[in-house]
């Protein structure tokens, strides 16, 4: 440490110089062993930055405390690569949110300098994990439309691809399908199915290796070096790949469960998938007698949007029925086609496809099909004629059955070990009721009642957290995030196509390109030791001090990304390129053995302890706020920007995620005399907003046990709380803080103060 020298730079701009005593701050800096302290009226200007640069060059300054504005702004100015730096937020979180020239405001600034120095001297420039060999190759699982597109896209970007197909040939569903939906102007006619061309392109591509009759026996390793055990028709082999795209597609919903819609009652009641095959064969003939059908009814939402079957909308069935009807009419313009729907869903430009079908004479009937019998009598509750209409004289009935994602190998039985069960249910429940003003909280759906995906895992991941790729409630292997659809809880493994969400070929093609990009991005970042989204570029990663590890396994269980495995002696093994750097493992560890080079338990503890705690007679309580960097901290920042004023008794420390908060920090704070502690972070639970998936949920779970500890310390439970803060709470946050301070006031000072 002796060769390090910290420079503290005090900015006097934006009201800081007028509202605070910089002399006082300078003496605080010196008391706390700053190697150097300088002031500037506007540190963010070229001249200000030059001052800092000069000291780095000439004065041997190795660490920086920039005491100026928020770390969220002026990032392009205060960018000193390779130099540990702390931005003490004297502007947004001090002089803009507290009165100028006030004793309490000065105390905030003084503490910010103390915390900044405590922090920066404990930071190291992270050295990325780059050792060993790294593969740039992409594995694509599934040789259907999406998989082939993903393979071609990755190859076009210059990456080798290994394409694995379970069946004996490429093509997937589209191989047996008739025409494609129109995706280009004028969006009116069914388009040629080009799956054959796609197969040829894949086979002709020298960067793509295709293995058919091939399945994945197991997958170990991490991004940049996944070890894949393959089983190709009984022959085992091992391949190394850098990232994985899962494009296992979908299967039709089991129509035998749709007896009420006539499936099984007559051979002429078929599913849309069966109709597709008939159309592809050319010249549709009805199964019972081989005659060309003259009148065909399409029953929409056959199984979809039905809580008894598939609760979601399968998205493509409306357009597919329109396409099939148009193909039938093209073959014989006299054919009467009826599409019986509840809500007709032809979004975007597909509206024109709907109109084109109407022009060609397809009849759309809004209603619910009550029954279909063996004589093909369809009883429709016709919503617009306002009567029950029996439709007779039909030659065929087509059930527009929905899509079931192949997020498991459904036909391969699998003994679900306990972690796997969690993997397929441990996420938001899309059915959870919304709560509105004046209404009592509605009862939640029973999670146990949710259908579970059966079958074997696709990749059979050799991860501590189980073999499955996490699956959301409906069975799709999707991202939970709106703004980050390729967010994944298994780094380096991206899903594309209908296994992710019901989608048509156009969207699947885009999705394939997107997932392929994420895959190549991941292998490139793994090689350079950088994190992928959301802490993109972060080179720090968890380092375990095995001397102190008690093998409690909390880190391996709580990691939201399954980044930590256990060795044969139950010690945690970190896989750095799987890690997303949230620090949930660090927060989980009861004995502070996990740390990042620039973020670790001792660092935050020191920051907490560096704050000066006035004694109880000063009547100046101190409250520690540990604020999530992504939402709570910006909300506090914007409160400052809006000049919202709040209690000067709080001391704010940003954390990577509430998941990284160690309970030991709370006891540290209480033992040095803080009167209360607030964890500010994102919404956990249903519709969770934590971008590390379950960081705030883990914090909540840990906090539920804090009450007991506090009681045993003879402290009131109310002294420690977790606040749900969203980034949009900039106007509300001041009052939330003040309310908490009032609660603490009413409890009186922490009896440990001064011990």
């Amino acid at each position, binding site marked *: 440490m002796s060769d390090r020298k910290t420079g503290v730079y005090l900015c006097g701009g934006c009201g800081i110089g007028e509202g605070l005593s910089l002399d006082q701050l300078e003496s605080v800096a010196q008391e706390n062993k700053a190697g150097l302290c300088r002031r500037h009226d506007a540190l963010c200007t070229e001249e200000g930055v030059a001052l800092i640069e000069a000291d780095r060059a000439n004065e041997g300054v190795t660490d920086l405390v920039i005491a100026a504005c928020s770390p969220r702004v002026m990032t392009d100015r205060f960018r000193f690569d390779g130099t540990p730096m702390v931005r003490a937020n004297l502007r947004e979180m001090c002089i803009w949110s507290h009165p100028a020239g006030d004793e309490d405001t000065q105390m905030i600034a003084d503490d910010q300098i103390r915390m900044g120095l405590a922090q920066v001297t404990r930071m190291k420039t992270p050295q990325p994990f780059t050792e060993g060999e790294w593969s740039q190759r992409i594995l694509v699982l599934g040789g259907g439309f999406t998989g082939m597109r993903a393979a071609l896209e990755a190859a076009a970007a210059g990456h080798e691809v290994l394409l694995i197909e379970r069946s004996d040939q490429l093509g997937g569903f589209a191989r047996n399908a008739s025409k494609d939906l129109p995706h280009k102007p004028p969006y009116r006619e069914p388009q040629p199915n080009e799956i054959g061309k796609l197969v040829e392109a894949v086979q002709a591509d020298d960067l793509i290796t295709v293995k058919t009759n091939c399945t994945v026996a197991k997958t170990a390793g991490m991004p940049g070096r996944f070890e894949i055990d393959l089983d190709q028709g009984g022959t085992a082999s091992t391949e190394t790949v850098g990232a994985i795209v899962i494009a296992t597609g979908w299967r039709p919903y089991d129509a035998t469960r749709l007896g009420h819609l006539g499936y099984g009652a007559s051979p002429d009641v078929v599913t849309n998938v069966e109709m597709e095959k008939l159309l592809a064969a050319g010249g549709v003939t009805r199964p019972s007698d081989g005659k060309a059908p003259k009148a065909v009814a399409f029953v929409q939402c056959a199984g979809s949007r039905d809580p008894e079957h598939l609760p979601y909308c399968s998205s493509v069935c409306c357009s597919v029925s329109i396409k099939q009807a148009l193909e039938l009419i093209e073959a014989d313009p006299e054919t009467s086609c009826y599409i019986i729907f509840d809500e007709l869903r032809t979004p975007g430009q597909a509206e024109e496809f709907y109109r084109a079908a109407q022009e060609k*004479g397809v*009849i759309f*009937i809004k209603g619910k099909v009550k029954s279909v019998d063996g004589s093909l009598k369809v009883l429709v509750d016709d919503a*617009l004629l306002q009567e029950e*209409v*029996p*439709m007779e*004289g039909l030659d065929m009935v087509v059930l527009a059955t929905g899509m079931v994602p192949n997020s498991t190998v459904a036909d391969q039985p699998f003994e679900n070990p306990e972690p796997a069960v969690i993997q397929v249910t441990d996420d938001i429940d899309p059915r959870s009721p919304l709560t509105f003003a004046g209404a009592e909280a509605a009862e939640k759906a029973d999670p146990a009642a949710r259908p579970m995906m059966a079958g074997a895992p696709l990749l059979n991941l050799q991860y501590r957290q189980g073999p499955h790729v996490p699956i959301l409630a409906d069975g799709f292997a999707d991202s939970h995030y709106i703004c980050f659809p390729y967010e994944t809880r298994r780094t380096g493994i991206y899903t594309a196509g209908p296994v992710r969400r019901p989608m048509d070929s156009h969207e699947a093609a885009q999705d394939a390109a997107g997932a392929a990009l994420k895959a190549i991005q991941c292998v490139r970042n793994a090689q350079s030791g950088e994190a992928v989204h959301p802490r993109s570029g972060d080179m720090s990663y968890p380092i375990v001090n095995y001397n102190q590890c008690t093998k409690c396994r909390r880190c391996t269980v709580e990691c939201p990304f399954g980044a930590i495995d256990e060795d044969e002696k139950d010690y945690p093994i970190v896989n750095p390129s799987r890690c997303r750097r949230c620090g949930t493992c660090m927060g989980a560890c009861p004995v502070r053995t996990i740390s990042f080079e620039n973020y670790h338990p001792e660092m935050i503890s020191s920051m907490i302890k560096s704050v000066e705690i006035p004694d109880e007679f000063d009547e100046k309580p101190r409250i520690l706020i540990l604020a999530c960097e992504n939402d709570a901290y910006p909300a506090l920042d914007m409160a400052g920007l809006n000049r919202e004023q709040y209690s000067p008794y709080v001391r704010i420390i940003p954390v990577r995620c509430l998941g990284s908060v160690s309970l030991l920090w709370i006891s540290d704070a209480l033992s040095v005399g803080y009167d209360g502690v607030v964890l500010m972070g994102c919404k956990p639970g249903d519709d969770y907003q934590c971008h590390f998936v379950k960081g705030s949920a883990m914090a909540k779970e840990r906090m539920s046990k804090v009450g007991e500890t506090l009681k045993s310390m003879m402290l009131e439970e109310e002294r420690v709380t977790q606040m749900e803060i969203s980034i949009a709470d900039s106007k509300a946050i001041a009052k939330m803080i003040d309310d908490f301070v009032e609660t603490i006031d009413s409890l009186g000072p922490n009896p440990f103060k001064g011990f």
Partner: protein
Amino acid sequence: MTATTAPAGARKYDLNFARWVYENVDGGERMAKCMQCGVCSGSCPIGTQMDHGPRKLFMMIRAGMKEAVLTSNTIWNCVSCYNCVVRCPRQVPVTYILHDLATLAVKEGYAEAKQADNARFAKAFWWSAAKYGKTDERLVTMKYYYSFGFGEFIKRGRANQKIALGMIKTKRMHLGMPHKVKKGGELKAILAKAAEIEAKKHG
């Protein structure tokens, strides 16, 4: 119109009638694009006076309900305000379709008995419009009532006395000489030309 007979539907959603209408009714092919949004029926100033309204009538055509369609008062009650046509998101020429269906109903013999009432009113309306270039509510009503005979004229007139007084009060109806357009001669010339065009169109 090429075909002279519209086929009746044997059962619901038999498409014979719908296809015939699509092909033979003025604007029928655009009717195929109706998506049942209801803007037409909702736009209709006398929508409450229609048994079905245009939107439902179009669905009934698809359902092959020939008799119900051609005996509907919807096809007669249209006042040609064109609100529906202007607002229809699928640009279905609702007004033309209704008028053509009315003509068809006459041809098919559905109009005579059931729609006599409408026909009388239409006659009275046309009389006023052609004579004065304007519809005079008082004269149209009187002429219409009188078409049922003198007794009915008195009876109906009395029954609607209150409405009439209300209309006079709010200046919706006036007493005294009927209002006329300024250049009656030009009106006559326009009407004559229209009749000529109409005659040519229908052979």
